[in-house]
C-alpha cells in the first residue's frame, strides 16, 4: 500500500525556520516507520536526517513524535499508524537537524541522580547474595533504555526544562530500591529539590510514551512515598 510520510524538517545551516517535507512510500503493514525513513533517505532524499541503530527497540536511538505520540520509529508499525504518518522531533530538546535533537540536556539529568551502585562495603570474593524477591523489587526500572521518550512527553518538563524528568527518576528508582545500594539518601535529597519528583503531576504521558512498558508513574510514586517516609 501507499503511505504518505510527512516529516518536520530543520537544518540550521540553511533554514531560517522549520518546514514540512512529504514523501509517498510503498509499504507493507508490517513495515516499521523506521523502514520508511530509511527508504526515503536511501532513495528519495538523502538529506533527511535521523538517528537509528538496533532497529528493534533496544538501543533507544530513534525516539520521535509519530502521529502526535512519542514512539520509537523501529517499534511503530504501519499497520498501527495507517496511511498517513506524521513525524516530528522530540519536544523540549533543542533540534540539531530534522529528527535529531540535542540529547545532552537529557543525559545531564540522568547523570545528576548518581546513576551507579553506591556501596563502599568490601564485596565478598563471590557474588553478594540477593533474594529473588529483592531483585524483583526494582526489575521494572532496569528495563529503561534512556531513549528520552518519557521525559520529552511530559508537560511538566515542557513547562520547565529544569525538571529532572521521568527517565532520571526511573533510573534513580532502579538504585534506590536495590537492597545492595547505600545511596538512597543522597538520591532522595537530589530528587527532593525544587526540580525533582514533586514537579510530577501524574499526567501519565510518560507511561503511554515508554517503549519498554515501564510503569513509570508507579515508580515515581514509590520514590515520592519513600521520600515522605524518610523525610
Amino acid at each position, binding site marked *: 500500500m501507499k503511505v504518505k510520510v510527512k516529516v518536520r524538517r530543520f*537544518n*540550521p*545551516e*540553511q533554514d531560517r525556520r522549520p518546514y514540512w517535507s512529504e514523501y509517498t512510500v510503498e509499504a507493507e503493514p*508490517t513495515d516499521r516507520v523506521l523502514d520508511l525513513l530509511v527508504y526515503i*533517505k*536511501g*532513495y528519495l*532524499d*538523502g*538529506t533527511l*536526517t*535521523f538517528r*537509528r*541503530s*538496533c*532497529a*528493534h*527497540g*533496544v*538501543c*533507544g*536511538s530513534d525516539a520521535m513524535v509519530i502521529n502526535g505520540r512519542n514512539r520509537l520509529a523501529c*517499534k511503530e*508499525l504501519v499497520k498501527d499508524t495507517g496511511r498517513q504518518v506524521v513525524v516530528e522531533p522530540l519536544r523540549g530538546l533543542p533540534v*540539531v*537537524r*530534522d529528527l*535529531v535533537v540535542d*540529547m545532552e540536556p537529557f*543525559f545531564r539529568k540522568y*547523570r545528576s541522580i548518581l*546513576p*551507579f*551502585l553506591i*556501596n563502599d562495603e568490601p*564485596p565478598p*570474593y*563471590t*557474588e*553478594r*547474595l*540477593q*533474594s*529473588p524477591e529483592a*531483585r524483583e523489587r*526494582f*526489575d521494572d526500572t*532496569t*528495563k529503561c*533504555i*534512556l531513549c528520552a521518550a518519557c521525559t520529552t512527553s511530559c508537560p511538566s518538563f515542557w513547562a520547565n526544562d529544569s525538571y529532572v524528568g521521568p527517565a532520571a527518576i526511573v533510573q534513580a528508582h*532502579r*538504585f534506590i530500591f*536495590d537492597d*545492595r*545500594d547505600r545511596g538512597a539518601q543522597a538520591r532522595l535529597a537530589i530528587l527532593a529539590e525544587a526540580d525533582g519528583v514533586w514537579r510530577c503531576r501524574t499526567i501519565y504521558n510518560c507511561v503511554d510514551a515508554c517503549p519498554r*512498558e515501564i510503569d513509570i508513574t508507579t515508580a515515581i510514586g514509590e520514590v515520592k512515598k519513600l521520600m515522605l517516609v524518610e523525610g
Partner: protein
Amino acid sequence: MIHRFDVIVVGAGGAGLMAALHASARAKTAVISKLYPVRSHTGTAQGGIGAALGNMEEDHPEWHIFDTIKGSDYLADQDAVKIMCEEAVEMVYDLEHMGLPFDRTPDGRIAQRPFGGHTNNVTKQPVRRACHAADRTGHMILQTLYQQCIKNNVVFFDEYQVLDLLVNDEGRVAGVTALHIDSGELHVFHAKATIFATGGFGRLWKITSNAYALTGDGVAIAYRRGIPLEDMEFYQFHPTGILGLGILLTEGVRGEGGVLINGLGERFMPRYAPTVKDLASRDVVSRAIYLEVRAGRGINGKDYVYLDVRPETVNKYFEQDGIKNPDGTPRRITAQDIRRKLPDISDFCKTYLQLDPIKSPLPIQPTAHYAMGGIPTNVNAEVVVDSRNTVLPGFYAAGECACVSVHGANRLGTNSLVDILVFGRRAGQNAAAYVAHADWPALPAAADGPARAALDAIRGGTGREVVAQIRADLRALMMDNVGVFRTEALLAEALSKLADLKERYRRISIMDKGKRWNTELLEAWELGCMLDLAEVTARAALTRTESRGAHFREDFPERDDVNWLKHSLAYREADGQIRMDTKPVTLGLYEPAKRVY
C-alpha cells in the same frame, strides 16, 4: 583540532567501556564513539554470559574451556581460551559487585541457564552456565559499565565517527582521525596507545541481527593501514532470527526448553545432534535448518522453520528426554515462567510477528550474527601483524572487531560477552602500562589529510550510482553467495560481482553537501568499509578448501586438519589486491577430535 590523550579507546560497547574503565584508572584516557555509549550493540545481547560458577549444578572452568575449543572446531588458540574461561568467573563477580542485576536462585546466588554447546563434560548433557538478567543481559552489562564510567569520570567524545588510524613514518600508531558528526569538523586524536573496540560487521548480509551501526569501520580501517585480518572466512549465522527481519531470538529460548520444528511437525535436531539436540552449537543448528528447508521440510515447503516454546511442547519433550531440575524433580515450565524469563522475546514476537510465543510457534531463519575473525591480537590484546605474531606497539583491539582467537571457527553462545570483558580489561590495563613508559609517537604530517580526502571524494562525486542500491545489492550477494553453504563457484562469482560493486561505488554521488549531521556522507563512507570487508571475507572463504565450524564448503565438506589446522591472514597489498597467508593455531590442551554433539 588536535586532542592529546595517553590512551584513546574507539568504540563504547562492552569491550570499549571495560578498556576505558581500566585504562582511565591509570592514564589520561578518552573514549570516541559514533553512537552514544548506551546505544552500542552489546546492549542487544540477550541470553546470558558464560562462566562456570557452578551455582545450579556441578561445573568447572576446565569444562568451559573444552566446550569452547570443541565449539571452535579446534581453531581457537587454546592459551587464549584458557585465560578467557578462567577469568570469566571473576568477571561475572566483578559485574555483580558493580551492581549488575543478575537474576537470582532461591538462595540468592546468580542464576544460570543452559546454552548451546555448553556441557557437563562427563555426562555430555547441557549444563547451566549462562548467567542471566532475564533476556536483556547485554543491556544490563552495557548500562552497568556505562554507570561505572560515569562514576569514574571517564571522558567521552560521543557521536564522533573514526575515519582513519594514524600510522607515522616509523610505523608507529599515533592515534586516530575522527569526524565530529554534529559540526562536520575533523578532529585529530593524538595518543600513545590506541584501542579499537569497534564491533562487528553483520550489515554485510541481507538478513542480520546486527544494528545499522555495524558496518565494520574499525576492522576496515586497520586493514587499509596494512594490518592483516585473521580468519575472516568464519562468520556466524545465528539459527533463530525472526523471519525476514533477522531480529535475534536468543538461544536462551532453547535453553529454557524451546525446540525447532520442521514443516512435518517434527523436532528435527535429534537427527543432527543426538545428545544435546536443540542445544548444539550454532553452526550445527543453522546448517540443520538449511538442510531441512532444502529437503522440502520447511514450513509449508518455504524457507523457514518454527521455534516452539509453548509450554505444552516444551513439557512434552522435557518428559520424553527425562530432563530434571537440579534437585532431581522433573523439569516443567509454565506460561508464566516464559513471560518472566523471556520478557523481551515475548515483546519482540508481539511487536514484529503479532504472535504470542506462549500460544504460537515462531517462524525463524538463520541470521548473520557474529564475526569470529577480525584484527589479530595476542592474549594481551596487543595487535599482531604477521604469522610470527609480531606486536605493533601502541595498538590494541578487543571484542568482536578483534581475533584473539578465542572463538576459532565458531563461537559458542554467551562467549562474546565473556570475550569483551576479559580482553577489554586486558586491553585497558596493558595500554595503561604501556603509556607509562612509552614516548609520544610523532603525528604524521597533515594527519587528517587522508580522512579529509576520502570525505571530499565522496562529497564531490558526480556519478549516477546510488549508495543505498549498491548496499542492497551487496547485502543480497553476501546472503546468496557467502552465507551458510559455500562453493568455489559461488565464491568466485561473489568476488567478480564485488569487483563490479566496487567499480559502481567509484561513481556514487550524494545529495547532502552540508557539514552538520551529514549522515548521508557517513553512510557512503561506511559502504566503502563494507565493500572491503566483503571482498576479504569472500576471498578468505574461497581460499580455505575445507569445512570447519561456520565455514562450510559443499565442495570440501570435511575438516582437513593436515592442511588447514591454521588461521588465515588477509593482507591488503599496495595495489589494493588481497594476499592470503596462514599462521599456526596454538594447541596444547586438547588435540583436535571429531566434533559430535
